């Protein structure tokens, strides 16, 4: 099927997620969609598969305008989407899951379905038992099940959103072989990824998105350097960096291994010194969030130890970490950091040490006014927290921090913020550093990582680099590491050690 996307635009509140994207994908080909987090890949695919309506723009299938207003419309047009987290039903048997979404009758034809299931599995060499339960499968096997289901309900177009995250290497090879054979049979495949290696290996053509725009396309043979350049942009600004004096060790991470739902991290070692800033770089879901959470006592390590100021904190709760002067600021500000429905002033009261039984309203108001002024928050003590803009919510999180702190852990400190807020937030964080507080932060903005970190840990698919001095990195070299290239050096280093 020939796909044409014409001038697709979509705005969420103030964020231009897609602006005027046009793309033609010929039948029987694999089209890569490359871009960093927040580049607009997912939005574009959600529009194409009917989950989101565009503000403007048209979708043409085989030259005809297609009306796609819901996922059901997309399925009727033969567009099948394989989500990053497969949309399957864990408490069902594979065969029942397979039957879902198939039209026809009150009583499903289980026997016919079982036959089709076996034929499809055989064709692609998938080893799946139709009577097993979905929740017993690995992520890779769940993908295989979804691909079979999408083919059986008659998809001509397959969209895969970051399909290689969380699956094993053999499963990845099998997936790629399947996709190549499907494409040669006439299927059109859209492959969304931020992994350079995968895209370079698999795709007949690549479209690169950045900040909601289509910034370029490429055909094989690919030049990795060009792809990285287009993905991250070229504007690189290095402000002068003050050398931080090596202080005492605040946090030491010794051989820590962690397990998340889809990712496993092995043997992380780092000593964070007082006043130091550590940047955690990597594509979203590469393990940095779990690691940061573990530094705050939110996740327990499988093995290894966390020490704060020489005190072993392994296995202690977040509130114990908090008492030792650790603060954790989540990226999902309204979902995890703040309490919608409560006012600014109520937040300040909650963040303070409790004094007495009754709330001293007058003191609370005074405190709120002081902090609101000190952190330049645009809001009133009594306004509900959800009425603040993203930048002001982030300022609010900073304003809620107690003193003194030894370590601040921040997820995406400036995501979605304008320049003014970004500069302001970092100014406040740096103020804390000057007072001896260490900062560990996650960012998908390479410039931010290079600009503010003293040292950097790079995460890729659960692998963690040794700490690298920020001045030894450039946007290009960091971009390559994030995309999974150039890791051999570390491994050689590990083998030597």
């Amino acid at each position: 099927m020939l796909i044409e996307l014409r001038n697709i635009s979509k705005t969420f509140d103030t964020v231009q997620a897609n602006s005027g994207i046009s793309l033609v994908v010929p039948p029987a080909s694999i089209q890569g969609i490359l871009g960093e987090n927040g580049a607009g890949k997912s939005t574009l695919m959600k529009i194409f598969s009917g989950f989101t309506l565009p503000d403007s723009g048209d979708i043409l299938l085989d030259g005809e305008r297609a009306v796609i207003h819901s996922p059901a419309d997309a399925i009727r047009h033969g567009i099948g989407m394989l989500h990053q987290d497969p949309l399957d039903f864990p408490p069902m048997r594979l065969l029942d899951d397979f039957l879902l979404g198939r039209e026809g009758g009150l009583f499903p034809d289980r026997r016919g379905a079982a036959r089709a299931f076996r034929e499809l599995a055989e064709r692609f060499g998938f080893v799946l038992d139709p009577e097993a339960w979905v929740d017993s499968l690995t992520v890779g096997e769940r993908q295989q099940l979804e691909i079979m289901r999408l083919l059986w309900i008659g998809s001509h177009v397959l969209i895969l959103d970051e399909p290689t995250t969380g699956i094993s290497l053999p499963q990845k090879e099998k997936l790629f072989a399947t996709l190549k054979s499907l494409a040669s049979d006439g299927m059109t495949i859209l492959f969304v990824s931020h992994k350079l290696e995968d895209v370079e290996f698999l795709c007949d053509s690549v479209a690169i998105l950045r900040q909601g725009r289509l910034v370029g396309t490429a055909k094989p043979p690919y030049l990795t350097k060009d792809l990285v350049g287009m993905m991250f942009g070229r504007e690189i600004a290095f402000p002068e960096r003050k050398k931080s004096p090596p202080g005492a060790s605040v946090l030491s991470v010794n051989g820590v291994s962690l397990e998340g739902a889809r990712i496993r991290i092995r043997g992380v070692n780092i000593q964070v010194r007082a006043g130091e800033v550590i940047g955690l770089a990597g594509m979203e879901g590469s393990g940095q969030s779990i690691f940061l959470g573990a530094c705050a006592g939110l996740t327990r390590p499988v093995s290894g130890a966390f020490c704060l100021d020489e005190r072993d904190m392994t296995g202690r709760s977040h509130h114990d970490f908090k008492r030792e002067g650790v603060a954790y600021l989540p990226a999902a500000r309204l979902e995890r950091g703040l309490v919608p429905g409560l006012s600014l002033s109520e937040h300040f009261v909650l963040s303070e040490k409790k004094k007495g039984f009754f709330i001293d309203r007058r003191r609370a108001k005074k405190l709120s006014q002081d902090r609101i002024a000190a952190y330049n928050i645009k809001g009133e003590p009594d306004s509900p927290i959800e009425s603040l803009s993203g930048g002001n919510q982030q300022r609010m999180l900073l304003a809620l921090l107690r003193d003194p702190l030894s370590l601040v852990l921040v997820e995406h400190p400036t995501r979605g913020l304008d320049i003014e807020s970004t500069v302001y937030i970092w100014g406040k964080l740096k103020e804390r550093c000057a007072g001896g507080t260490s900062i560990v932060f996650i960012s998908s903005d390479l410039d931010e990582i290079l600009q503010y970190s003293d040292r950097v840990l790079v995460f890729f698919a659960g692998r963690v680099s040794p700490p690298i001095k920020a001045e030894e990195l450039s946007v290009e070299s960091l971009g390559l590491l994030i995309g999974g290239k150039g890791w051999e050096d570390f491994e050689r280093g590990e083998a030597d050690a």
Partner: protein
Amino acid sequence: MRDSRGMRAFFQVGGIVFALALTTVVLVASKAPPFAAYLNIALGAFGSWEVFSNVLVSWVPLLLATSGLLLTFTVGLWNIGIEGQITFGAIFATWAMRSLQGGGTDPAFVIMLSILAGALGGILWAMLAGALKTFGGVNEIFGGLGLNFVATAVNLWLIFGPWKRPGIASMSGTVPFDKALWLPTLTAQSRLSPSSIAIAVAGIVLVYVLISGTHFGLRLKAVGRNPRAAYLLGIPTWQYMMTSFAICGAFAGLAGAIQVTAVYHRLIPSISSGYGYLGMMVAMLVNYRAALAAPVALFFAALNVGSIQLPIVLKLDSSLAGVLQGTLVLFVLLAQGAREFFARKGGKR
């Protein structure tokens, strides 16, 4: 369209009007004169001091249940097990009475002890549901519902087993306590006791102050609205959930104990009389604001008591009160949903 106070009131009144209209349709459909029915309910509740005192008798346990539930709703939990907590309050109060009566203890002291025992029974039963939720991963709605059945069964077993009347066990309950152990009432005929009114009023005032003016209440709100953020802000979330359950259980237990010591003077099979569920409706209807709980609970109690004489006067079933209460809650909630829908739509364009 802004989500103003006026808009809110408009939709709330709209919901009430719809509920009345639907009930009227039900009345007309069953060939009953609607105005006569409403008038009868009003007269049945407010027509004389005698009937009004019955309204107050019913208001006390309803208000106590609502007060407790306001706390559990604030922390974001559905304490549907409140019926069982009322029953256990009644059982513990009866147990205290039975153990102490005839032992020469000062009657006033016995009554006080048995009311406290009732509160303790409610606390224990509520903590059980809370512990199942916190440590067993059992949703508090399912756990509470199961525990309600268990409480009813225990109650029946006591009435027909160990605590049965000499000779024949009967649905009319256990042997009444000595008259000296009845909670003093206004007059000899009345079942209204000033001290139970005082307990209920003190309860709702306490809850109002807790929720609106204390650190405890603010923390409950924070846990109820966003437990993950509350945890990161340093609030021990499950401890607060358990505490709110315990306090709600104490309120429920008090309600049960008052039914035993002031109203029935014995343990009867359906001792909770549905006040727990009715309390949930009141809490939802007032949108979890403590300030409105007392008048709305009084209105619900008036509907209950006022409809008692419908069968006699109009040959209508007294369940009309339930129809009106149910539709009120449904339509007011529906109106809330509609208001939010329009507010969202208005905000977008």
